[in-house]
């Protein structure tokens, strides 16, 4: 039975990816859907990475935007094509005079480009992870709220430093970076995020993951059981930041530009809301949450901003109304659906089959003996 479930799950995921692949190649798919999927998948990676910290290890960190920023900048600065360097660094002489992807692409052809992008994304993650290691040394000793504030403060410092004139030959100061390779379709981001999330899930289900959960549930008891608190916390923090860095690189590709201004604390709050809406402690919840969040805020509610849609001569709909409604929806979610969409459960093929069956039953008869 267990094996069957596993196969079902694999089929389920394969089906999902097939759909994504088809969406990518079939013409006529609404471009808005593709955009939302593309951004949603990037945010689901960072939401899952935040969930690893907040939901599974019980470390309340608010530094996610800072790590994404590190990732995005690392990816961008080593990949800006040399022909565009003078335009991008219009006021400075660039510190890195090469583009990793270009160098590898020239040497190895198409494979080199793929390798270059992969390597730079790993570098992006590593830079973020290294920063996390450094900052984690002092900060991880702090508890709950204090940790949250310290990481939030750290993210702000990183943002201020990146924009400094002294670092401008690398980061281009306040000017934005562009001209690095990015994906056009949605399939490759889905693959990358899929691999990353799979790694996180494997980690959560490993000995380490169980140790993380023990720390979340009771630090003192966990320590008594022989779990090394400091090293496990650091591990969770560094790994989470690694994936935040990777998603930062993906976000850079999505935007096709990088500017430190984007990665404000508001972005961390958004990610936190995604995690909460999806359910703290549920990986699939974070994924669903991020798609819903992005679709709601950037797509479905857009009509609220359009003053042409006003009816009855009321002048309620105008720009800004969308965000008011959206924040209302969020408040309602936070107040009345405290556990989020998924709670701590996970989506699996078994659950889906069950819920579809019960739904069909209910529609047919209004009574169902399965539950």
């Amino acid at each position: 039975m267990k094996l069957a479930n596993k196969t079902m799950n694999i089929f389920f995921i394969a089906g999902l990816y097939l759909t994504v692949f088809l969406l990518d190649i079939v013409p006529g798919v609404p471009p808005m859907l593709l955009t939302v999927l593309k951004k949603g998948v990037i945010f689901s990676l960072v939401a899952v990475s935040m969930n690893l910290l907040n939901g599974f290890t019980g470390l309340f960190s608010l530094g996610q935007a800072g790590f994404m920023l590190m990732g995005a900048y690392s990816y961008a600065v080593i990949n800006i094509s040399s022909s565009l360097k003078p335009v991008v660094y219009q006021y400075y002489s660039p510190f890195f005079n090469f583009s990793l992807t270009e160098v590898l692409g020239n040497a190895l052809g198409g494979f080199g480009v793929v390798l270059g992008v992969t390597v730079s994304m790993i570098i992006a993650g590593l830079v973020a992870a290294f920063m996390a290691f450094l900052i984690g040394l002092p900060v991880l000793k702090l508890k709950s709220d204090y940790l949250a504030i310290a990481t939030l403060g750290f993210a702000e410092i990183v943002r201020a430093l990146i924009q400094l004139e002294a670092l401008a030959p690398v980061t281009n100061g306040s000017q934005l970076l562009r001209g690095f390779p990015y994906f056009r379709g949605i399939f490759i981001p889905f693959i990358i995020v899929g691999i990353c999330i799979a790694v996180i899930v494997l980690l959560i289900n490993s000995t380490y993951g169980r140790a993380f959960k023990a720390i979340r549930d009771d630090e003192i008891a966990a320590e008594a059981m022989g779990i090394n608190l400091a090293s496990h916390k650091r591990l969770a923090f560094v790994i989470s930041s690694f994936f935040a860095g990777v998603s930062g690189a993906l976000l850079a590709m999505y935007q096709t530009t990088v500017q430190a201004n984007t990665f404000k604390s508001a972005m961390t709050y958004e990610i936190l809301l995604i995690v909460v809406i999806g359910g703290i402690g549920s990986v699939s919840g974070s994924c669903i949450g991020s798609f819903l969040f992005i679709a709601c805020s950037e797509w479905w509610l857009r009509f609220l901003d359009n003053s042409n849609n006003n009816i009855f001569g009321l002048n309620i709909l105008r720009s800004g109304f969308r965000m008011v409604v959206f924040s209302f929806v969020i408040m309602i979610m936070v107040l009345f659906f405290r556990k989020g969409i998924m709670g701590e459960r996970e989506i699996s093929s078994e659950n889906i089959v069950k819920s579809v069956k019960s739904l069909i039953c209910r529609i047919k008869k209004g009574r169902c003996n399965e539950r």
Partner: protein
Amino acid sequence: MKKFYLISVILIALLVLCGCSKSSAGSYTVKIGVFEPQSGDNGAGGKQEVIGIQYANSIRPTVKIAGKEYKVVLDIQDNQSSTDKAVSAAQQLVADKCSIVLGSYGSGVSIAAGSYFKDAKIPAIGVSCTNAAVTAGNDYYFRVCFLDPFQGSVMANFAREECKAEKAYVLSMLGDDYTVGLAKNFVSSFKALGGTVVADETFVEGTSDFSSYLQNAKDFGADVIFAPSATTYAALIIEQASTKGLSIPILAGDTWESSVISDAQNGKNIKVYCSTFFDENDKSGIASQFVNGFKSYLNSNATAKTNNGGNDIVAAVSALGFDAYNLACDVIEKAGSTDGKVLRDALAAYSGDSFVTGAISFDANGDAKKNTAYIKQAVNGAFSFVKVQSAR
């Protein structure tokens, strides 16, 4: 699980609502996308730009393509002044099949959206994105305003010639590509003209106490302050400079021609100059006609007036928005098509002079060829024309 169904039902309902709201208006329509910030840091400026476009649309609601009247529908999407939100706004415009896109206020969002417009082969006309990187390397991005380097040198010339300044104090906002870029260009021009820059300082977003910066300027013995910044900070800078009793002039770029600045300066003994795109007293009469028409439009439309800051002062960006819209209509009529590629070629070849902000034709990059800027001074709650300033 019940909750889950409930949420899905709500979401589906929303989706349906959304679908319903997009009803087409009339049989012959052409869509012009407006890609502007309506919220976020640049929300205020973006709104003023949109009013200019809406006013232009109210005057010229139709275009003639191949002898048929087409109604122009404006599709306004908010890019929230943020590059990560801008992409979906741009994509929405692509999805709505706009023929041409106007915008944006702020260069960062324009650059982020540029590649998406380029991929969709929709030409875009930048309204007040002054950063050189917007049009460089993008065949589909054009713009009607002048560029940062030009504007920086104009203000440097003005500071040297008119204010007779020897020492300049420069203040810009960290992390804002527009103000930092403009400040850099000012610094290099001012030095080239023989002046000294006593300090080139930055403030961070959200700053409200500028008295320390102004005290620095005073201590350095600056003759002039160049402080391009968003209007939010501009109001604070002017107010606090007046409290400090600073008598030296404050110069800034085009964003300062806004009612926020004239309100802040009103009743204070402080000189505030900004560069701008048009002169309402020019000979052709187009600008004065625009100013009068726009003022009566603002006074008759409550929403527009609120978005303009509650008064009828004409912001420079509104004039640019007006021109960008007219340019788009001209091009559509000239090309006789709504196809992006045809429109792009028509734009590249375009040349016309019936615009508020002066004649428009494009160079190889897609930038409007402009060589004059106008300097205005904020006096008693309004702007008065000072001089035409060219860069040397």
